[in-house]
């Protein structure tokens, strides 16, 4: 929808396509507080798009708008070229948008395998009667999807904990399982809310690798929120910078790095 | 009460269906726990004490000792079924469950197992039709009789006419409480009185709405079909609104000592029906000396002479007389349940016999036949004297209006027969 309308190939040989999601003039209020003020940006197919900003900048709210959990008071969301009508979060998910959460939102009472299998819910169509009978359609479907999930498990290297209840896992592994669950859905757009929060350097490197691999191997479009500037600049193709609910910068890592307003926001220059 | 080691290994007893016929086995499906314990305990005490008296005084019935099998039901039908199944294999001769719910359970079961069931003044009213309910007896009276007796008493009080009067029925919102409604409706058409129905939901601790309505509408009389905590609260609330107690009449399950004592002096003058008299009978002295002093009392011995104790004892006496009758008919001392049924159907209770048993006038004289398992349906009206803490009989036995209850019984029994493919007839 702007200057970069056509697809191009990045330095490392990935193809970035046309606009997948376009957010136009989004404003979100909680009571009297404006969490997001008139923000527009787009996400292109195949790219890694980062949203950064200081605490309370409205990043998570933005992600919640994309995943349909919050309804913006103003503005429009276009997905795959069409205006998205008012939708419940589960309808958004069915359109092919999957996400992880800042504070891990796994199903603690279920095993790792079951958690990841929930990512396949939207692909499993057997009705209640067929499920009750199990033999036949339901079992076939279960096995097909299980095979798919196993590929994700292999990809993220978590074979050993398949049958472990999620509640017993350490933090880093939980993050990985959550990523696996989102990946299992084969999303068109993957939203990652601080995927590396609370991780040590080694874990961060692992996670960065997974994110790049996902993007590279499956061609998944990724939008992520992250605090660690180094990681963000290395990973992403383009970056949106938010501060106090406003967009203060948008462009490639290099462009953003040179933006005075961004520097001010991060260095804590007083606002007028 | 002493620990009585029943040596019998009960698992064997409850599994094997072959009873050892050495004595007369009488199960007592009692409830000494739960919400209705206050009513269940004295009844069971009276029931057991009488059989113990027979054992102590006469060596049982016809020379055969009686063995009582007490089983706690807690007034729950499921535990009632468990009790029935665990006792019937021991050769139980007659059941007296003292619960409408359990009675309904046992009507088909006892019929199939051919064991007589006696539901004395409770249970299924139409069981009075002996041709449909061959194995069920509800003499000496039933709920429809009770409703009719109440109205007859009130007719008598009002010079033979209730025209234009208003009667309010306060009833437990259950099968039991709804029993008298049809009879009262029929009677209200017949005698021209208005009937107001006030349902009280289980358990009945909150009756403010009902009694405010009574206070607003000022019915001439309030009749009550209650059980358990509902009775105590209703009597208290009636006193609270200043309803004249002499115009408040409960049925025979709402007329025991524990129903009125919590309200204290305010309950003075409350009336209730009774199917048995509550005098100081000579038989109590015998029970005291031969049973209680011997350490064989069924409870703590404190209930002797109370309304429900007397009724329990009366029930035991009717059972014992039926067994004796069965022994006489069949000429054996060791009777079977089927023989006891024959005894019940041929039962004849005379004033002379009651006098002889030390319980003169405890009930009306009546006889049972194949057609009529319901007895006379007579009832007395008694009044509570709070100062002395006693019930006194106000009337002699009052007869119900058979022309009203009779057709209702026939109709309901016919419906039951049709639903269950029973061809009415005598055994």
């Amino acid at each position, binding site marked *: 929808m702007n200057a970069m309308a056509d697809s191009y190939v990045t330095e490392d040989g990935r193809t970035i396509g046309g606009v997948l999601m376009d957010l136009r003039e989004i404003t979100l209020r909680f009571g009297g507080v404006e969490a997001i003020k008139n923000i527009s940006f787009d996400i292109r197919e195949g790219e890694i798009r980062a949203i950064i900003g200081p605490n309370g900048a409205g990043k998570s709210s933005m992600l919640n708008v994309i995943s349909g959990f919050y309804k913006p008071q103003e503005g429009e969301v276009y997905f795959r070229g069409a205006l998205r009508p008012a939708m419940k979060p589960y309808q958004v998910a069915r359109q092919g948008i999957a996400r992880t959460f800042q504070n891990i939102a796994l199903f603690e009472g279920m095993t790792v395998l079951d958690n990841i299998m929930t990512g396949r819910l939207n692909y499993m169509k057997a009705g209640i009667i067929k499920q009750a009978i199990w033999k036949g359609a339901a079992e076939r479907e279960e096995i097909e999807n299980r095979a798919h999930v196993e590929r994700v498990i292999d990809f993220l290297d978590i074979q050993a904990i398949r049958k472990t209840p999620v509640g017993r896992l350490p933090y880093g592994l939980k993050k990985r399982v959550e990523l696996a669950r989102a990946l299992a859905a084969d999303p068109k757009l993957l939203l990652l809310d601080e995927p590396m929060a609370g991780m040590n350097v080694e874990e961060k490197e692992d996670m960065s690798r997974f994110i790049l691999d996902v993007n590279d191997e499956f061609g998944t479009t990724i939008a992520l929120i992250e605090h660690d500037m180094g990681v963000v600049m290395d990973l992403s193709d383009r970056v949106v910078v938010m501060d106090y609910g406003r967009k203060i910068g948008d462009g490639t890592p290099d462009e953003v790095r040179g933006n005075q307003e961004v520097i001010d926001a991060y260095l804590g220059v007083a606002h007028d | 009460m002493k*620990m009585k080691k029943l040596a019998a290994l009960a698992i064997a007893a409850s599994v094997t269906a072959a009873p050892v016929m050495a004595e007369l086995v009488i199960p007592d499906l009692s409830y000494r726990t739960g919400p209705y314990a*206050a009513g269940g305990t004295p009844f069971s005490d009276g029931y057991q004490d009488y059989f113990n008296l027979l054992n102590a005084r006469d060596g049982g019935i016809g020379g055969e000792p009686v063995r009582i099998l007490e089983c706690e039901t807690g007034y729950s039908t499921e535990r009632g079924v468990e009790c029935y199944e665990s006792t019937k294999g021991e050769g139980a001769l007659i059941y007296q469950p003292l619960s409408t719910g359990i009675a309904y359970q046992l009507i088909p079961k006892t019929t199939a197992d051919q064991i007589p069931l006696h539901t004395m003044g409770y249970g299924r009213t139409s069981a009075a039709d002996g041709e449909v309910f061959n194995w069920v007896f509800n003499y000496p009276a039933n709920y429809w009789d009770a409703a009719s007796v109440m109205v007859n008493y009130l007719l008598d009080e009002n010079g033979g006419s209730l025209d234009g009067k208003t009667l309010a029925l306060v009833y437990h919102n259950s099968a039991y409480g709804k029993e008298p409604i049809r009879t009262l409706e029929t009677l209200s058409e017949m005698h021209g009185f208005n009937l107001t129905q006030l349902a009280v939901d289980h358990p009945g*601790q909150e009756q403010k709405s009902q009694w405010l309505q009574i206070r607003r509408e000022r019915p001439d009389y309030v009749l009550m079909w209650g059980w358990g905590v509902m009775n105590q609260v209703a009597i208290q609330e009636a006193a609270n609104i200043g309803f004249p107690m002499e115009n408040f009449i409960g049925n025979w399950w709402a007329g025991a000592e524990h129903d009125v004592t919590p309200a204290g002096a305010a309950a003075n003058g409350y009336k209730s029906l009774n199917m048995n008299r509550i005098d100081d009978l000579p038989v109590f002295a015998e029970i005291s000396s031969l049973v209680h002093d011997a350490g064989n009392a069924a409870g703590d011995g404190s209930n002797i002479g109370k309304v429900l104790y007397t009724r329990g004892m009366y029930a035991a006496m009717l059972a014992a007389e039926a067994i004796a009758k069965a022994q006489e008919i069949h000429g054996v001392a060791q009777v079977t349940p089927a023989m006891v049924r024959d005894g019940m159907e041929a039962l004849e209770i005379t004033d002379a016999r009651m006098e002889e048993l030390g319980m003169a006038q405890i009930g009306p004289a009546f006889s049972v036949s194949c057609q009529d398992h319901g007895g006379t349906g007579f009832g007395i009206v008694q009044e509570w004297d709070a100062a002395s803490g006693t019930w006194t009989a106000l009337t002699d036995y009052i007869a119900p209006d058979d022309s009203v209850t009779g057709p209702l019984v026939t109709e309901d029994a016919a419906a039951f027969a049709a639903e269950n493919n029973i061809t009415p007839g005598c055994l």
Partner: protein
Amino acid sequence: MSTDFLYLVEVLINGLMAGVMYSLVALGFVLIFKASGIFNYAQGVMALFAALTLAGIMEGQVPFAHIINAILGTNIHHFGWHVPAVLAILMTIVVMVGFAWGVQRFVFRHLVGQEPIILFMATIGLAYFLEGVGDLMWGSDIKTLALGLPQGGSRWLEDMTVGWGGDDFYGFYIDKLDMVATIVAILLVASLIAFSQYTKHGRAMRAVADDHQAALSVGISLNFIWILVWSLAGFVALVAGIMWGAKSGVQFSLSMIALKALPVLMLGGFTSIPGAIVGGLIIGMGEKLFEYTVGSLVGGATENWFAYVLALLFLVFRPQGLFGERIIERV
């Protein structure tokens, strides 16, 4: 004023009064839930047990007489003395504190940090246990509480108001016991609030209710606070038991009054003492009004379910109850 209107007012007033009686039971639930997150199913049985104990002590009954007699073959029932009411109440409070200590020491201390439903289940076990102990200790016959509480409609009020309506209006009816209950409830709530505002332990109690971890970190003994809370709930149960027992005598059915308190809790919120009172008033008034207006058209006895339906309707619009803490959903 028209008679119908006056009667409507009377129904409303009596509904409020009934509501106070429900609130008395609901208060005990709130105390425990607020401080420990335990939904105490046993509150009704505690009311029964407290009232049984009070009646038993006053009558000079021998506790566990039945079982003692059964084992030893003796025949003892009473000590043969009567304990004055005030002394008996104090002794009952001691018993309830002992009970609170036992509950905390033997049950809930071992269940700290469990899920709410597990704690709920444990209180069900407690209810069974306490019911059995109550029966064993004091027997299952109906006992009368001779505390001399006034009962019956206030004749004075009736005479005052009888002239307001037509011939078929007989003056307002208010049960004196209900008035006493109202005063008791006001005193109880006032003293509970005063206790929690102005005393050291009360403030500690509030701190625990707000945040267990924070309270621990400033050196408050959770164990002590929970014993305190259970004792208070035991005391509230005693009050409820006395009030309800005055009407029906002390008997098994007293434990079922808990069912009348649940819609009150729903409506008022599980964590609010004012909520328990206001919820009680709304439920009492609502159910009496419904029975008065609609009940007679559909056959009566609607109060039990209507109280729940009223609370349910209310909750659909306000899921955390009237005064409950707002539920905030975050991801």
